[in-house]
């Protein structure tokens, strides 16, 4: 069956000047707000729970149950923090929302703030996205001026929403939600120790919820059209759609909204246009650099939803597919990625700080032609030493990608020994 593009979050992306309020209003933006305020906040949360909406920043955790972790309303301020850090290599989907439909994000923030009864939202965006930050700020200014946000939502509802965009300073780890909060609080972006039980996040000691930009942007449609409009797409366990990104030597790299469960190879060939310049597919990193690599044979069996991806030993992550063609050395790929991780480790936990450097040096040694089988074992051993022994999942992610490359393409590492 042909792969079909679905237009929910991306509905307005192709409309000229879609980022401007006037155009956004003509094309359905803020239509969910009247319905929103006819519902009780807990009913909005329930609707999102029933929709099965899952976090689209990489974790895939259900959104509604996360909102339920907020404590009952009391005199304390409550916050919504929107994660637009988007630093995972291969991932460039949230920037489409900032660029083409910032008002869907603002609308989603109003819906989500009402559901969790927060009145202030912070959007944390990576510092490199200066242009996108300016574009989003223009939209927020327009929304304030029109009275859509501010002391009375849509100039009529007795509910205030304030939105502030917070520009990051260039640190991958600030995409991790607790590091992100630390960063806004004026500290180094060091992830926090997590409690044993599930609870909400804490911003300056006050309850907060952190959601990804795309997740929040998926909420208005669910509010306006009901959860069934969302569950008709995707799979039973992963309902709905996701903005899948494709990069590397395909004919049409870019971001495409698809329902979950599509066949990866069909997406690459039909939507991505297949490999360009007669290149042959060698491997795909399916959802940003942290996901275990898939060989060309595995790609043939891969489906784009969380459960299917787990079944073949990888993860869906952010849905950012990095296409690797024949002719590219997997030792170079491993080297490139470990340099990234070595540079971006926040340095808080010793296994991660030292482990990334150790693997980096060992791969360089192999590339210099002075490596041995022992070095391959060292890399695998360091991967295991890093796994599960750190505060956040950065180190396990390094283990996942590096170990999968070394195990699946071990012969390419061994070829360097003969030099």
């Amino acid at each position: 069956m042909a792969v079909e593009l679905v237009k929910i979050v991306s509905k307005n992306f192709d409309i000229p000047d879609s980022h401007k309020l006037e155009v956004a209003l003509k094309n359905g933006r803020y239509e969910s707000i009247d319905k929103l305020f006819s519902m009780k906040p807990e009913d909005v949360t329930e609707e999102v729970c029933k929709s099965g909406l899952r976090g689209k920043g990489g974790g895939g955790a259900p959104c509604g149950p996360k909102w339920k972790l907020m404590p009952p309303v009391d005199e304390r301020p409550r916050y919504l923090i929107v994660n637009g850090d988007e630093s995972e290599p291969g991932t460039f989907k949230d920037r489409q929302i900032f660029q083409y439909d910032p008002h869907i994000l603002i609308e989603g923030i109003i819906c989500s703030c009402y559901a969790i009864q927060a009145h202030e939202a912070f959007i944390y965006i990576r510092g490199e996205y200066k242009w996108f930050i300016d574009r989003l700020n223009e939209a927020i200014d327009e929304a304030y001026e029109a009275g859509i946000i501010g002391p009375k939502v849509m100039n009529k509802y007795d509910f205030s929403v304030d939105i502030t965009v917070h520009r990051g300073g260039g640190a991958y780890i600030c995409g991790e939600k607790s590091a992100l909060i630390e960063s806004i609080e004026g500290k180094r972006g060091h992830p926090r120790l997590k409690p044993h039980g599930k609870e909400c996040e804490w911003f300056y000691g006050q309850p907060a919820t952190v959601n990804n930009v795309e997740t929040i942007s998926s909420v208005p449609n669910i509010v306006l059209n009901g959860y069934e409009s969302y569950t008709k797409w995707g799979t039973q366990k992963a309902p709905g759609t996701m903005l899948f990104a494709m990069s590397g030597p395909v004919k049409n790299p870019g971001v495409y909204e698809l329902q979950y469960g599509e066949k990866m190879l069909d997406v690459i060939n039909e939507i991505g246009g297949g490999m360009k310049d007669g290149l042959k597919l060698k491997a795909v990193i399916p959802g940003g650099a942290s996901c275990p690599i898939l060989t060309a044979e595995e790609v043939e069996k891969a489906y784009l939803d969380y459960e299917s991806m787990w079944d073949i030993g990888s993860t869906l992550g952010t849905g950012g597919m990095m296409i690797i063609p024949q002719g590219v050395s997997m030792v170079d790929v491993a080297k490139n990625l470990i340099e990234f991780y070595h540079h971006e480790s926040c340095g808080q936990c010793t296994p991660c700080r030292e482990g990334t450097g150790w693997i980096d040096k060992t791969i360089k040694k192999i590339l210099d032609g002075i490596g041995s089988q022992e070095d391959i074992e060292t890399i695998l051993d360091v991967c295991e030493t890093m796994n599960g022994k750190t505060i956040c999942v950065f180190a396990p992610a390094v283990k996942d990608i590096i170990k999968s490359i070394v195990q699946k393409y071990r012969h390419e590492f061994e070829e360097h020994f003969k030099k």
Partner: protein
Amino acid sequence: MSKFKYTDEKEKEFQRIAKKYPKIDAMMLPALWLVQEQEGWVSPDAMIFLADKLGKTPIEVYEFATFYTMFNLKPIGTYHIELCKTLSCMIMGAPELKKFIKDTLGIGPGETTADGKFHFSEVECQGACGGAPMIALNHTYHENLTVDKLKKIIEECK
């Protein structure tokens, strides 16, 4: 006592932004950005100024500023070329662009041309993988680059 001061415009902007946050600590990133916009870099003197303003010690500001890679801790050239080196850009031709920059401007990563015009940084993923390879020139993205396109961009700056 610091010799650095925000311009009136930046001071006004600082006060405007500060009202949005529950505590002044949250102004660390916005305040540093205002310094860098004003001076092009964050000097030790500016860090002392910020420490005073934000109720921190200078070393706390320094520790913060050094954690985030986008703050320039020394003056850089007029044009800052940031070349993405991460996987998709590597596959799509970033190494050729790096060679071109070295050959034409004579600078490697972390270096500035003698006339102070260009500074070159090799950076990690910029979230432009679909438009790989890319550079950011003073924060403006240039994507789907070839050596010819980069040549034109650099010539326009000269």
